């Protein structure tokens, strides 16, 4: 913790985390959150423990777990626990919801697949009743949206509403920030925002909010900077407010004010320039970071008029500045300011050069190289300034000893590099070349870094050639010879240099001069020829030039030129070398180094070739480049193009091949009218046919987790395949189902446990159960009501008289519905953003928006259907209320539950068993297994978690009603459970319930060990008037390939006032084949594996000529009633899978063409297949289909 390694305690930490005592658990999670990270190996042991804690009864256990998880979540943990956290999103406790919402963000980052299924729920949390949850949701969505704004554009209306209605500053800031991210994508949104934002700016007293508003307004204005005339008012407002911030005594506000100001500067420099005084004032601030901000601002504030003034002020500051850091910063800023935009603001280059020279007097700067490159740049690109520059440089060279000075950090000597080169290259402009030459030969030069010495040597030769030519012209041969002698005498000091390059150059130069002296002694005139060595002008090459060389037609660089790969690699090296040479600006170090490496003869040859080329067509590059060796040749010729252009530039028609260059030139031409010098500034040479488009690829770091979160949330997955395995809630479902679903599951389990103990504590239990049911009902209504609110706000048309059947249908058509919704949503956005409506009344707009796009009846929410059902139920229960109030209540809640189940079982069926499998696979620390899934009942009398629950009527008379459903036991291959709900419909006490089945060879009722085979089974409870209870009976089955019809009897005793009577009820228990089916698959791959393995020998086909259901409806029906899983669905065809408890696989392929439905089946068992197809046929064929629904 205090920086000491405690990784050794990782295991102890986990043990403490798993403790049941809150004290320990809390500490354990704290320790874990402090010390665990991705590489902590023990983390994988924690999955089950954390899950247990997340589902804990104690909210603080769950809270601690979530807090901890948020710190050490890994992709594995995120994948495994995403479901549990998603469940908590709909917890009843705001405390948990809030944490879960925030945790989801962390999970998304680690496990992007979770985003899609969770997003709908997250979105709902924006309208949560608890402000904490709401602001948490805003936080999370804002974070998500800021990284990938375009996927969240559809949420703009919701946020807009929040923004205009909320007073929570914390949340407002986030929302406004979000809008800042959204506006660049949708300029119309910006227009809408301006007004509320300006209102906020006017009204708020919170600086943070003000600051955020200004930031967003700036972003908005940038996005709509064109085409909105009256935004100057808002800009003015912003600038005014910022001025107040900057003038504030609080340093923080000052800093932020400057920061925001610099953002405005980019688009509206004029409005900021008015506050120059303020910014200059900030330069005197005590705080360095504020001064730096002010400098940034200055950068954008300069104009031609004030440049000199500002720079002068900066120079003054530089003299005063104490810290070298700040001084360096100032220096580079001065250069930046002057050189920005291709020296746009400089009217007098003489001034600039003198500034540069002045700067060299500053001690201990690290920007020597920068100054040097500026000198070179100016001297080369501004021909008019050369003579002045050369004279200044000569002065610098004379005073070289001042620069070579002392400290290590000092890099100012770099300017000598530039000075030497400039003096050498433009030697003809030197007033006293000989003096300069001598200055360069001073012995102190040897202390300079080798690369500068190299330049010295080279330019000494240049100067020499110049001076010699001059002397020869004056016929002063002795002087010329004497000069040669001087060089021969001095050059050896370079020859002795340790640096190879300097040595090389010096040797070359020395030998050349010795040779020349020989020639001179023979009386030959060498000046002319010597100067030819250095004739021609060097031009800057645009930085992007190399990249822009167009690939000639027919050139395939990936193709082998020569077969053997070993050679090709060496060839590449050679090519690379040449590229480097031609690539960089000539003036840059590299090139200057390399040029002299060539022997003099070679240079000569090239120069000649270049001169020749100059006469030729400049477009030769394309025409003459052969496909194979273009790399070599083109780069060679590229040099020549440079020469070519340089010639044309001498005639003052500078070639500009890039657009940018052109525009700049025209500007600088304008400048030149007013400026002292005739200035031509070139952007740099570009190759033929190059486009000057900027390369703007998505440069986002591939490590950025947000990249993975770029998921289009509007687009819904086509099928379940898209759904990640571990999500219990299909993305298609609305939020409520998942919640009820899981709750239901849990509740059921609990109920089951209770039934186990029922004999002893029957009454107590019942009351508790009732309580629980009530609770659930409350929850449901809560949920429903919240949805009602939502609906009201949307003013969706409500259709009347929706039957449960259509509700069912509704569920099945969810897919289309959602798609339509999405579409509608998008339309809404369009409408919302349309410029016609006023931006002030979002509410009325929302209303208008919906009414303008009428929602088809089928578009109704699933939840609204539920509400309706409930209403219906309430209505129906009214008349009976007087007498059977209690009973009705029971039934109602049960029915409700059932219905809820009906709605969601298909989901459950598809996903949750899979989940279980996956969870169980995960290695877990040995914790008492209380999670759902691992505590499955082992005895036939306890209920297991059903993959589906579908109650059918078994028998009914005036006293009793029996309904049943079948369930499979996941671990047993020859047992199924029939769960029967007994309802006492009469007003008397019913007891001695006995249940018997006439066993068949195949199917036998499990009667326990002791009983005779024909004995009936006693139902272990009694039924007071109007009550309902559930009994479960296990059946042993041998074969599961045929449907079974079992006869049975049910006897009971009614205790009336007068005595008791025995009653008997006969029934037939129908066990369809699907009763033995487990509609789940452990892994998705198995389906294709199965089909390709050839194990599925049995084939059968079912053709239905006329099917009245929609395809998706039909699929759901099959899945629901026959326990299948949809593996994949593409348009109107789908593959389904299920397997029997005895391990026989059944795969179905359903296709619909018009109204004709074809179902091809493959299975490992032919009888099973035909039975199931028969069942499907009965299920789908409307004529024979007696709806099994109640």
């Amino acid at each position, binding site marked *: 913790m*205090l920086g000491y390694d405690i990784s050794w305690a990782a295991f102890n930490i986990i043990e403490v985390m798993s403790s049941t005592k809150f004290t320990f658990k809390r500490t354990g999670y*704290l320790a874990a959150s402090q010390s665990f990270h991705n590489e902590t190996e023990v983390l994988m042991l924690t999955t089950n423990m954390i899950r247990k804690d997340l589902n804990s009864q104690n909210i603080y256990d769950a809270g601690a777990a979530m807090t901890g998880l948020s710190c050490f979540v890994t992709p594995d943990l995120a994948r495994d626990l995403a479901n549990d956290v998603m469940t908590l999103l709909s917890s009843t406790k705001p405390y948990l919801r809030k944490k879960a919402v925030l945790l989801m963000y962390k999970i998304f980052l680690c496990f992007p697949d979770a985003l899609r299924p969770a997003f709908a729920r997250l979105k709902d949390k924006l309208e949560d009743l608890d402000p*904490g949850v709401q602001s*948490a949701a805003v936080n999370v969505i804002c974070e998500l949206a800021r990284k990938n704004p375009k996927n969240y554009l559809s949420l703009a209306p919701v946020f807009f509403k929040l923004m205009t209605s909320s007073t929570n500053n914390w949340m407002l800031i986030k929302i406004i920030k979000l809008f800042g991210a959204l506006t660049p994508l949708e300029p119309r949104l910006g227009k809408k925002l301006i007004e509320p934002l300006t209102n906020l700016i006017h009204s708020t007293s919170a600086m943070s909010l003000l600051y955020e508003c200004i930031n967003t307004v700036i972003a908005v204005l940038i996005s709509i900077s064109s085409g909105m005339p009256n935004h100057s008012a808002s800009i003015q407002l912003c600038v005014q407010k910022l001025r107040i911030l900057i003038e504030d005594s609080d340093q923080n506000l000052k800093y932020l004010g400057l920061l925001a100001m610099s953002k405005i500067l980019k688009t509206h420099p004029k409005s900021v320039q008015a506050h120059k005084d303020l910014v200059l004032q900030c330069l005197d601030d005590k705080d360095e970071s504020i001064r730096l901000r002010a400098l940034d601002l200055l950068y954008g504030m300069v104009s031609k008029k004030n440049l000199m003034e500002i720079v002068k002020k900066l120079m003054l500051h530089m003299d005063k500045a104490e810290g070298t850091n700040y001084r360096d910063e100032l220096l580079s800023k001065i250069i930046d300011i002057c050189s920005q935009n291709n020296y746009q603001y400089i009217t007098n280059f003489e001034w600039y050069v003198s500034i540069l020279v002045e700067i060299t007097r500053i001690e201990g700067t690290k920007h020597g190289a920068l100054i040097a490159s500026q000198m070179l740049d100016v001297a080369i690109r501004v021909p008019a300034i050369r003579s002045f520059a050369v004279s200044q440089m000569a002065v610098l060279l004379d005073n070289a000893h001042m620069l070579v000075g002392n400290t290590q950090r000092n890099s100012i000597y770099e300017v000598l590099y530039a000075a030497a080169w400039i003096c050498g290259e433009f030697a003809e402009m030197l007033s006293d070349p000989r003096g300069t030459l001598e200055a360069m030969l001073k012995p102190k030069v040897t202390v300079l870094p080798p690369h500068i010495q190299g330049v010295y040597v080279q330019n000494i030769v240049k100067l020499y050639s110049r001076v010699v030519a001059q002397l020869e012209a004056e016929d002063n041969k002795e002087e010329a010879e004497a000069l040669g002698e001087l060089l021969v005498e001095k050059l050896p000091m370079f020859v002795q240099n340790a640096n190879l390059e300097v040595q090389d150059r010096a040797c070359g130069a020395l030998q050349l001069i010795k040779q020349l002296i020989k020639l001179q002694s023979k009386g030959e005139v060498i000046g002319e020829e010597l100067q030819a060595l250095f004739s021609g002008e060097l031009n800057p090459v645009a930085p992007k030039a190399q990249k822009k060389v167009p690939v000639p037609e027919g050139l395939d660089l990936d193709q082998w030129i020569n077969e053997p790969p070993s050679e090709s690699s060496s060839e590449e090296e050679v090519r690379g070398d040449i590229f480097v040479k031609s690539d960089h600006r000539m003036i840059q170090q590299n090139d200057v180094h390399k040029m002299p490496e060539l022997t003099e003869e070679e240079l000569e040859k090239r120069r000649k070739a270049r001169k020749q080329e100059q006469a030729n067509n400049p477009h030769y590059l394309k025409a003459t480049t052969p496909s194979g060796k273009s790399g070599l040749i083109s780069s060679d010729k590229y040099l020549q193009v440079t020469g070519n252009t340089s010639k044309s530039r001498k005639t003052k028609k500078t070639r500009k091949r890039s657009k940018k260059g052109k525009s700049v030139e025209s500007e600088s031409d304008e400048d030149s009218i007013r400026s002292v010098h005739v200035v031509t500034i070139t952007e740099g040479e570009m190759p033929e046919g190059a486009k000057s488009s900027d390369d703007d690829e998505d440069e986002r770091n591939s490590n950025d987790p947000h990249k993975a979160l770029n998921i289009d949330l509007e687009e819904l997955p086509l099928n379940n395949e898209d759904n990640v395995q571990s999500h219990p809630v299909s993305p298609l479902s609305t939020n409520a189902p998942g919640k009820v679903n899981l709750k239901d599951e849990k509740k059921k389990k609990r109920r089951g446990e209770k039934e186990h103990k029922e004999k002893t504590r029957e009454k107590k239990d019942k009351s508790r159960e009732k309580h629980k049911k009530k609770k659930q009902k409350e929850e449901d209504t809560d949920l429903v009501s919240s949805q009602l609110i939502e609906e009201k706000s949307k003013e969706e048309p409500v259709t009347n008289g929706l039957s449960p059947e259509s509700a069912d249908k509704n569920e099945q058509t969810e897919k289309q519905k959602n798609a339509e919704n999405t579409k509608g949503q998008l339309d809404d956005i369009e409408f919302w953003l349309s410029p016609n409506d006023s931006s002030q009344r979002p509410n009325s707009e929302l209303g208008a928006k919906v009414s303008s796009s009428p929602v088809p009846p089928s578009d109704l929410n699933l939840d609204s259907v539920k509400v309706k059902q409930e209403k219906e139920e309430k209505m129906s229960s009214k008349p009976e209320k007087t007498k059977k109030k209690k009973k009705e209540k029971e039934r109602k809640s049960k029915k409700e539950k059932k219905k809820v189940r009906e709605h969601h079982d298909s989901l459950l069926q598809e996903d949750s068993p899979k989940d279980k499998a996956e969870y169980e696979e995960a290695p877990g620390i040995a914790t008492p297994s209380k999670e759902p899934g691992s505590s499955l009942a082992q005895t036939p009398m306890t209920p297991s978690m059903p993959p589906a629950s579908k109650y059918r009527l078994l028998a009914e008379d005036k006293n009793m009603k029996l309904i049943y459903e079948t369930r499979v036991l996941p671990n047993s291959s020859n047992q199924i459970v029939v769960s029967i709900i007994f309802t006492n419909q009469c007003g008397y006490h019913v007891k001695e319930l006995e249940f018997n089945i006439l066993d068949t060879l195949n199917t036998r009722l499990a009667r326990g060990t002791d009983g005779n085979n024909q004995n009936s089974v006693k139902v272990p409870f009694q039924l007071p008037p109007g009550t309902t209870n559930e009994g479960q009976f296990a059946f042993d089955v041998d074969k599961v390939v045929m449907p079974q019809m079992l006869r049975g009897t049910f006897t009971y005793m009614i205790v009336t006032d007068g005595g008791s009577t025995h009653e008997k009820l006969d029934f037939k228990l129908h066990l369809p084949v699907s009763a033995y089916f487990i509609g789940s698959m452990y892994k998705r791959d198995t389906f294709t594996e199965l089909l390709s393995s050839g194990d599925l020998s049995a084939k059968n086909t079912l053709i239905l000529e006329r099917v009245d259901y929609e395809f998706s409806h039909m699929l759901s029906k099959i899945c629901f009633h026959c326990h299948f899983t949809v593996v994949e669905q593409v348009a109107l065809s789908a593959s389904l899978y299920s397997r029997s408890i005895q391990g026989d696989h059944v795969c179905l392929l359903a296709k619909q063409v018009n109204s004709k439905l074809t179902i091809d089946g493959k299975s490992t068992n032919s009888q099973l297949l035909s039975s199931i197809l028969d069942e499907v046929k009965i299920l789908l064929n409307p004529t024979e289909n007696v709806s099994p629904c109640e």
Partner: protein
Amino acid sequence: MLQFMLLFSRQGKLRLQKWYVAHPDKQKKKITRELITTILARKPKMCSFLEWKDLKIVYKRYASLYFCCAIDQDDNELLTLEIIHRYVELLDKYFGSVCELDIIFNFEKAYFILDELLLGGEIQETSKKNVLKAIAAQDLLQETSPSSSLPDWNLTVILHALTWDPLEPRKHLRVFLKTMALVKGNASEDCCSNETTLGFGY
């Protein structure tokens, strides 16, 4: 999003650290060291914001303690200052005019409060009342949860490890004793005598 939060004293001693983005220990140490030196070098008149690598650092000094947060480039600095202030207020309310010693001795409480205020680097609860309520409820739970007769060794080891500072064995001992008290659910004085019998010889 907050990347991390550090509390350190004017002497440069780290008092509290919370990382919302997992880093290996080495890197954490490096970042911490770098930031502490940078911030301590700044003069009191300077503004509270720094640009550091690709993050923004927002810090504020309260008495002898520096509170330092790292946020993303596009986050609101003033909001972060608010968060820091809110945290200080919470500490103040909880401990009753908080001082550095409170945070040293009850570091776990300080963490718990922080965890209620922030989660995963985002503000979780803006209401002071709610945070304190949650903390109070948890503390109550902690007190009422049945205390075992024997100290849980693992817990001891961890709390121990969390606070172990070789340079200050005396302070460490105090923290350790407090830990024992926590484990046993007793007042800290009772534990003083246990120290030798437990076998931790310092």
